[in-house]
Structure formats: C-alpha cells, structure tokens
C-alpha cells in the first residue's frame, strides 16, 4: 500500500495561514522542499499533519492555540492524499469558540465523493496511523533529540506496526475464535465442551463396551444351549424310537414310515434343487415373464432398435469438413451434431443391447416346468405331513397301551421343542441386524448386539468429538505459542535488519565517530568505537542516528509512507548535511521537507541538480497574510529574516 500527499490547505490558522493552499500537482514530485522562515507555521503544519493523519484527539487549548485571530470562529486544515492512487481528502475542522474539532473524509468510494464525518482511511492503514507512529514519518528535529528514548517500546513498536507483525496477533485471535466455534459445534453434538463431557462419554463408551461383552457372552450361552437342546432332541427321538420298537407290530409300521420318510426327504431335496434352478431363470418363473421378454425382443426388432447409427457416427461426422449431404459442417452445425449425438446409443451400448435383444428373442422356456416341480413339491410336502402324522399315531397308540416313559419322553420332546423356539427367538432378538425386525422385537443396545455395536460407534464418535475439543484447544494453544514465537523471532530479525541498515547509514553519516546502534530494544541503544554504551550524543549526532534509523525502518516497509520532515539539517554541520542530503533522498518515494533558508547550504542544494523536485517558498507578508512562490530560482534567492515564532 502506498500513501502520498498531493497537497494541503489552511484556513484561519495562526502564522498567517489564513487561506493558503499548497498543491503538489497531479504528478506529485518525489521531493518537495518547502521553504518557510521560522515563525511562519512550520511546527504548526507538522502538528496539523500528525493530527490529521492519526485523528488525534486535541485538547480545547490546542485547538484554540491554532486560531489565526480573535475574529475567526472556525479554522480548517485539509490534506489531499492518494492511497494506492485513489484520492482522499481529510479535513480537520476546528471550532475556536468551544475548542472542539472534528475530522472529515471524502473518499472516491463514497457516493458523489462527498465529505463524511470521521477519519475514514483504509482499514489496513489504521493500525499504522497512531499518534505515536505518525511522529516517525511526520518527523521533526525534536524527536531526534529523544530518539534514544522515544518511549520504551516505540522503536520495537514501530517495527511491529510497520512490518505488520500485528497480523500474527490477528492470527492468534482467529485461532481463539476457531476454538470457540469448535466448542460450540461440539456442544451442539454432545454437550461435551470440557473434561466433564469427555468423562461422560468415556463412561458411556466403556458401559457400551461392557454391554457388548455381556451380550457376546449371552450369544455364546444361547449357542451352547441350542447345541444342548439339539442334542437332547436327537436323543429324545432315539429314546422314543427305542420305546416304539419294543412292540413288534408298531416297529414294523414305524420302519415302513421311516423308509417312506427318507424317500420323501430325498425327493424333496431333489425337487428343491430343480425348483431353485428354475427359480433362478426368470423366463421359467411364469409364462408372463417369458412373454414379456419375447415381446420386448420383438419390439426392438420391429422398431429396428438399437439403431445402426451410433453416437460415435455423429461424433466422427462432427469432425468432418462436410456432412454426408455435402453441406459444410460449420462450428454451429458441429455443436448441434455433438449435442444430438448423445441421444444415440454408444457403440458398446448398441452391442450390449443387440446381445440382450438376441437373448430376449431366443428366450425359451417350458413354462410348465416350474408348475410341475411346485406341484410335485407340494405333493411331497403333503406326503411328509401325512407320514409325520402316521408316526405320531404310532407313538400315541403305544402311550395308550400304557407306556408312561414314552409319554414322559414325548412331553419332554414337546418342552424341548418349545425351548428351542425360545432359544431361537432370543438368538434372533440378540443378533438381528434387520432394522424392521429390531423394531418389532423391541431390540435395542441393551439386548441386541448390532444395536450395541452401533451405540459403541456413536459413543466413540461423541467421545472423539468431546476429546477433540480438548485436543483442539491444546492444539490451538500450541499454534498460538508457535505464532507468538514466530512474532518474537520476526521482531528480533527485523530489529537486527533495521539495526544493521541503520549502522550502515551511520557509517556514512558520522564516519569519524564510529557511532553505532548496539541494540534496538524498547529504544535505541548507542555505542561508539570507544565506549560500550554512549550516552553523551550531540544534537547533530542524534539527528544522524534518527535519520539512519527512520530511513532504515521506513524504506523497506511493506507500506510506503511519505516522509515529512521539519528542519532536516538545521542542527547538522555542513559536512553531515551533505551526507544526509546525499543519502536520504533515495530512501523514500515521497519526501516533503520544511526548511529554512540556512538549510539550503549543504542540504537543499544537494537537490538542485536532481529532477522531480518541487520547490515552494511560503512566507508571511503581514500579520494575517502569506505569499507562496514556486520554483527553484525563487527558492534559491529568497531572503527574509526569520520571524520570531
């Protein structure tokens, strides 16, 4: 981002600045030298710049002190700026009667570019334009004197602000917001935002795992029970048979029925095999299906489907210069052909459908086969039922003849069969995965293994969510720690970079003294070649240090700011002036320098040979009036005894 000053204007400001406007022009010069004798409002101008850049809150007395005369009630200072080439107009309106002041901004973005109350500069600039920081680029020699003690944190603070390390603070704030959002999300799912939630879901998860263990044991028990019941069932059948065979005639009948049953079982098995084979052939299930298959095959043949022309034919045609009809295939025609090609079957689809059509047309089945098998099967089942009934009859006859043991065995068999049914039902309830069946059987996580497994999964997810919140918080703290360390490290490296650049410039500005910045902590700590810590520094040396530091600080910053300086060389000897005059012009894209005539020698004259310099001379012509002259010639020759400020 680049901020440039295009001009400024005074109304009713002390120092004869009644109605004065300085216009730096559309193609704003890189360097502007404004020659103003002492007492004509240089210091006032610097204060007004600082206030208007930063929106500083001025005291009523400060406002009243800016009054041009008792007659005027209101005053104004207006800056015209270009921020990334977009014009801004910022006004400081002063009410001398009540000592109040307001800031107004006109932006190109606002409707009609009208003035709106408040300082509305781009958001990105706002962190930079604090009153403290503004003093660094709207700079006067006064600051130079205190450069080594510019507030405990100003030097480091300036680096943080200018090099946007505050964005890392923003990142930490964003991380904090993410943690809050994650906690809210977790709260919505599990109400578990803290360790309490983790504990709660851990307990639920453990309980579900325990339930699964219990249900698995129950499953094993049922299987074992089933095995025992099946074995007992076989045993009872043998015992019952043994009772029957004790009676010779009953034995003969029983044996005959067994032989018949075995044959029926074999027949049933055979019919099932046939039935399954028929069942798996759609055309054999019912004549209706066969008819439909044939009808579809016939229909496709009749309609000559699939078409012999495939989508590929049209796609190829679209690439030809001419259609088969001889007309040219233009872009428009090509697009139409390609769009419509999609309604045709692709070649592989055509192949498959042709194969299907063939299969449909050739579907042949004896639709009576299934009827034959089903009828035979039904007959076999009926015979089996009859056989079973006859066997029951034999047992009944034996009981009626007084076989109490057989009666007991029969009862036990009935009970055993009932137990098998109960076991079967319990096993189904315990193991069914069928949701509809689970609902019918009122199966849930307490009595159904699949439901319990689902509950374990659910608890695990919630536990993970709850744990994640804690883990997320820990991870966030870790990220914040990294960001803070990065910020500290970046500040350290930038400080060092600025320090080394400062020292390079100092070596040029004050070569004899070997004055160096030893450390940039809160402020600048100086050392010279002779002493570790230098405290006694002349005004000129302070200014040299200030320039070296400020130019190093501002020159490579991502935000390009103008450098506005009052009396840049007044306290420097001529040699240092020349050094400063040679060094600093190249460091800023825009410099506005307020000078007095004595600074022309050694400093201002270093610009005379340069291009892209604007010279303005502003002086007071009376108690309440001022005059402006532009141009180098006037600047060079202007002579006026500096007024007493």
């Amino acid at each position, binding site marked *: 981002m680049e901020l440039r000053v295009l001009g400024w204007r005074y109304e009713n400001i002390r120092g004869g600045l009644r109605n004065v406007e300085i216009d730096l022009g559309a193609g704003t010069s890189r360097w502007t030298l404004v020659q103003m004798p002492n007492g004509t409002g240089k210091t006032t101008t610097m204060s007004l710049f600082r206030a208007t850049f930063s929106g500083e809150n001025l005291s009523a007395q400060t406002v009243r002190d800016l009054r041009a005369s008792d007659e005027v009630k209101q005053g104004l200072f207006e800056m015209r700026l270009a921020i990334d080439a977009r014009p801004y107009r910022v006004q400081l309106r002063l009410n001398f009667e009540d000592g109040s002041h307001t800031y107004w901004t006109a932006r190109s973005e606002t409707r009609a570019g009208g003035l709106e109350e408040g300082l509305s500069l781009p958001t990105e600039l706002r962190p930079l334009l604090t009153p403290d920081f503004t003093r660094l680029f709207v700079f006067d020699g006064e600051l130079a004197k205190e450069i080594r003690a510019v507030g405990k944190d100003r030097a480091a603070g300036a680096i943080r602000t200018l090099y946007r390390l505050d964005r890392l603070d923003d990142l930490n704030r964003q991380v904090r917001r993410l943690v809050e959002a994650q906690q809210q999300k977790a709260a919505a799912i599990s109400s578990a935002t803290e360790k309490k939630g983790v504990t709660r879901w851990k307990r639920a998860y453990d309980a579900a795992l325990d339930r699964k263990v219990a249900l698995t044991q129950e499953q094993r028990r049922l299987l074992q029970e089933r095995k025992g019941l099946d074995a007992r069932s076989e045993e009872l059948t043998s015992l019952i048979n043994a009772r029957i065979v004790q009676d010779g005639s009953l034995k003969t009948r029983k044996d005959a029925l067994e032989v018949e049953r075995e044959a029926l079982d074999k027949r*049933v*098995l*055979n*019919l*099932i*095999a046939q*039935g*399954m084979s028929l*069942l*798996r*052939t*759609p*055309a054999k*299930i*019912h004549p*209706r*299906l066969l008819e*439909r*298959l044939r*009808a*579809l095959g016939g*229909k*496709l043949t009749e*309609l*000559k*489907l*699939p*078409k012999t022309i495939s989508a590929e034919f049209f796609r190829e045609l679209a690439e030809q210069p001419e259609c088969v009809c001889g007309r040219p295939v233009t872009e428009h025609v090509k697009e139409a052909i390609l769009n419509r090609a999609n*309604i*045709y*079957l*692709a070649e*592989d*689809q055509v*192949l*498959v*459908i042709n*194969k*299907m059509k063939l*299969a*449909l047309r050739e*579907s042949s089945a004896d639709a009576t086969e*299934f*009827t034959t*098998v*089903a*009828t035979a*099967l*039904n*007959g*076999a*089942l009926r015979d089996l039922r009859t056989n079973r009934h006859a066997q029951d009859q034999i047992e009944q006859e034996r009981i009626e003849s007084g076989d109490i043991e057989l009666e007991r065995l029969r009862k036990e068999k009935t009970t055993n069969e009932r137990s098998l049914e109960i076991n079967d039902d319990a096993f*189904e309830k315990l193991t*069914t*995965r*069928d*949701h*509809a*069946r689970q609902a*019918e059987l009122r199966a849930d996580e307490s009595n159904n293994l699949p439901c319990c497994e689902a509950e374990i999964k659910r608890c695990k997810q919630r536990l993970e969510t709850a744990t994640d919140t804690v883990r997320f918080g820990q991870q966030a703290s870790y990220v914040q720690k990294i960001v803070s360390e990065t910020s500290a490290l970046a500040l350290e490296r930038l400080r060092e970079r600025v320090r080394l650049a400062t020292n390079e410039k100092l070596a040029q500005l004050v070569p004899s003294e070997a004055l160096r910045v030893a450390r940039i902590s809160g402020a600048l700590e100086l050392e010279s070649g002779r002493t570790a810590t230098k405290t006694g520094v002349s005004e000129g040396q302070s200014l040299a240090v200030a320039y070296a530091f400020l130019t190093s600080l501002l020159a490579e910053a991502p935000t390009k700011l103008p450098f506005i300086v009052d009396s840049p060389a007044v306290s420097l000897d001529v040699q240092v002036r020349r050094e400063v005059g040679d060094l600093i012009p190249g460091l800023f894209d825009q410099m506005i320098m307020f000078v007095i005539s004595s600074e022309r020698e050694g400093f201002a004259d270093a610009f005379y040979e340069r291009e892209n310099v604007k010279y303005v001379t502003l002086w007071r012509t009376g108690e309440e009036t001022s005059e402006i002259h532009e141009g180098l010639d006037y600047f060079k020759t202007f002579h006026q005894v500096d007024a007493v400020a």
Partner: protein
Amino acid sequence: MSFLLPQGCRAFIKNIVAPNDGAKKFILFDAFYCSLMVGIDARKLGIKEDLESEVFLNGYPEDYKGQADIIAGLLIDAELDRKAIEPENKASIEREMTRLVNPTATTRLSDTGNDLLNLYAASGFKLIQDSMMAPASLEEFLVAYYQLWHRDSAVAE
C-alpha cells in the same frame, strides 16, 4: 453394482437361508431376486426407506451371471410400461435404454438401472410378505412363491 436388501427380508427368510447346504442352498441374493421379479412383474417401485442402508452384495453371484441380459431386459420392459411409453415411440425407448444400460457393468445396468432394481425389489418383497408367512423351510417357500405367481389359477396339486 450394489444390491440392497429390502427391510425385513433377512428376518423373513431366516429359516431358509442356509450357509451351504447342498441343494437347499438359498442365498441372500435369491431372496433379493425373488422380490425383484415380483416387483418388476407388478410394475411397482418401492421407496429407498424400504431398503437396508448397507449393500449386501456387489454384482451378480455366479448362478445369476448368465441372466444379466434377461434381468436388464425385464427392467427396461418394466420401465417402459411403468412410464407408459408407447411401443412405437422409438426415440423414447432408445432414450430409456441409454439411461438404463451401461455396457461396462457386469450387470449391464447403469447406476440408475441399479437403483431401480433395488426399488423394484423393495416393492416386490412387500407383495411377498403380504402373500405368505415367513417360510419354515425352503420347500415351503418354493411352493408358496409359485402360488404367489399363480394366484389366479388353482394351487398346484
């Protein structure tokens, strides 16, 4: 190709699904297929909610691979009928085939065709449930299934 069993189907056939019992082998896909044939015959689609959420089988089992063209044909036929597409409407019939057929799939069906197959099975299973009790044996099921198809004629004797 992903097959979904109709809800309640597993419980319904629990007595006849044998892991591997020779000729008596009745597999889950048999149950799906029996339901599908009934649903297709009725030209009735079930709803997604009537299906299990998890796929029980991908692709046809060995015994059914030879029927892929026929099953695809039956589906196309059912869809033409369900959508009342005129038998002479060549363009619509071709469009329907384009929609349902995927030559690269082993089932010959597109994803849309696959979804429809599942929905026909869902409706078919309801019709089966309405017409018979949960079978105690495979032989009973075969007879009952045959009778379902021949409701209008006399029971096979």
